[in-house]
């Protein structure tokens, strides 16, 4: 009972992870703030993979616009693929439960889809700081910089969206891997046994080449020639006296 509950809990955690990852796409992934010496907010910019940089200040705010970080875009195609994969994975875990499904071979694609999603998540977690933040002088994960010359305080930090992405990955990882190993592990066992038996049966059976037998008869019918006959190849055409049973 406890084992079944554990499985169920990890499955619920997986769905929660997918949900968090989806929600994270609409939240702030990075926050850049600038304060003056009196700790009054002068500039505020937050980054989201779908909307890009957004601010709480009005568009006419000169100081805020001047302090805007460099613009960069995570390809929207990647985000769309990510959302699709989240949907596919949710469908897989909710409707194609590895514990209920009898034909596990049919779940192979789903198992690979889950692994692909994991890779996408890991890519986001790694690529966002390395390929987008750091080259644009945006520090990761948190940094508080005091510029005494300019009398300003700069605050760099990852946002709730990125944090949710991290939690999503943690929640999704165990069950995705369990799903994959269960599907592939069970499948290979079943296949190896089936193949081994099928191969053995094939080896021990008398070979029957039906095409050859038909062709020989047709040749005989057409030319009246039975020199092509393959009857002799079959062991049964050399009848031996039936032996008495000597026991099994």
């Amino acid at each position, binding site marked *: 009972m406890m*084992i079944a509950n*554990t*499985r169920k809990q*990890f499955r619920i955690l997986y769905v929660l992870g997918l949900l968090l990852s989806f929600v994270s796409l609409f939240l702030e992934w990075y926050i850049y703030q600038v304060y003056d010496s009196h700790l009054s907010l002068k500039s505020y910019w937050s980054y989201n993979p779908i909307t890009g940089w957004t601010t709480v200040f009005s568009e006419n705010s000169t100081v805020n616009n001047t302090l805007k970080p460099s613009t960069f875009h995570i390809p929207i195609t990647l985000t769309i693929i990510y959302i699709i994969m989240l949907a596919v994975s949710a469908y897989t875990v909710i409707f194609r439960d590895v*514990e209920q499904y009898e034909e596990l071979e049919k779940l192979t694609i789903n198992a690979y889809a889950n692994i692909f999603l994991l890779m996408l998540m*890991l890519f986001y*977690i*790694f690529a966002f*700081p*390395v390929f987008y933040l*750091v*080259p644009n*002088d945006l*520090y*990761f*994960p948190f*940094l508080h910089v005091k510029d005494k010359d300019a009398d300003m305080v700069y605050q760099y930090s990852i946002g709730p969206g990125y944090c949710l992405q991290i939690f999503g990955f*943690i929640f999704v*990882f*165990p*069950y995705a*891997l*369990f799903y994959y*190993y*269960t599907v592939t*592990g*069970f499948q290979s*066992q079943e296949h*190896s*046994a*089936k193949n*081994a*038996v099928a191969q*053995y*049966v*094939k080896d*021990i*059976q*008398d070979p*029957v080449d*039906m*095409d050859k*037998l*038909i062709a020989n*008869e*047709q040749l*005989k*019918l057409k030319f009246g020639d039975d020199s092509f006959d393959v*009857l002799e190849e*079959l*062991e*049964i*055409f050399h*009848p*031996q*006296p*039936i*032996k008495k*049973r000597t026991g*099994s």
Partner: protein
Amino acid sequence: MNYELIDPKLKTLIKVCNQTHNYQKLAALSLVLVGNVLDEIGVKLGIRPRDKDAHEAIFHYMTLLNSILYHNFKMILFQEDVIESIKKTELLFSKHKGNIPMEFISQVYKLYYDFRKLEIPNLFEKLDLEAIAQNSEMRVYSFLSGISEQVKRKKSDQKLKDVIIHGFKEQEIQMQKELNEAYDKEKFEKMITFKNAKVALQQHAGGKIVLRGRLKDNLIYQRSIPNIFGYLMIGLFLLFFVLGLAVAIQTIYHPKLTALISIFSLTFFGTGCFFIMLYRQYFKKGGIV
């Protein structure tokens, strides 16, 4: 064997042989096909194939299959008249070197198709799963095992075992009756399960019922479950390693920050190492990964 491919070809061959009046070929082929089907049945049941080198007759092999099945399950797979029919055909074939009356040939083909309809459970798959269970040193116990252990503690488990064995035996006899009336794959599988459970109960000193085969899915899951926590450890390690790597790469871009952000590197890599050590310590042994 792919019967979908064989059937139309066999039909064509019968037509052509009818035209050439080569009934000898049809007779020989009928026996070859029957022999092949019986070999398949035998192998699936875990019985040796027909010994062709020793020219073991088909009807002898059928009798052997019957005797083994009767010995194990009190079940008769091939009725006496069927074996008799094959025997007559084989003896005639042997005596007249293939020249046998058409009625015998058609009877063998009829039997060939009857044999093909028998759905024999593949015991080799079950054996394979048994091997898995043994390798992983795992057993699936029914709730009865718990009761049985308690009873053992009270030194009276034998009585309970007897009751359970009796229950299995009754169900087995019922199955045998039904199977002897008409063969059914599912009933046969059930009977094998009963027999396995009964044997396990009789053999295992712990009084635990070892249920195998039909609970194959559970076996695999049982093996996988402890590893979910292991997977969680691997996931956490990967995550912290990647975060640590991102911070380390940052120091290449901004070397002046190295001292400042070294705390992050240390935390991320350190936590990553902690999780991988945890995994190696508690989850790696006996796991799938």
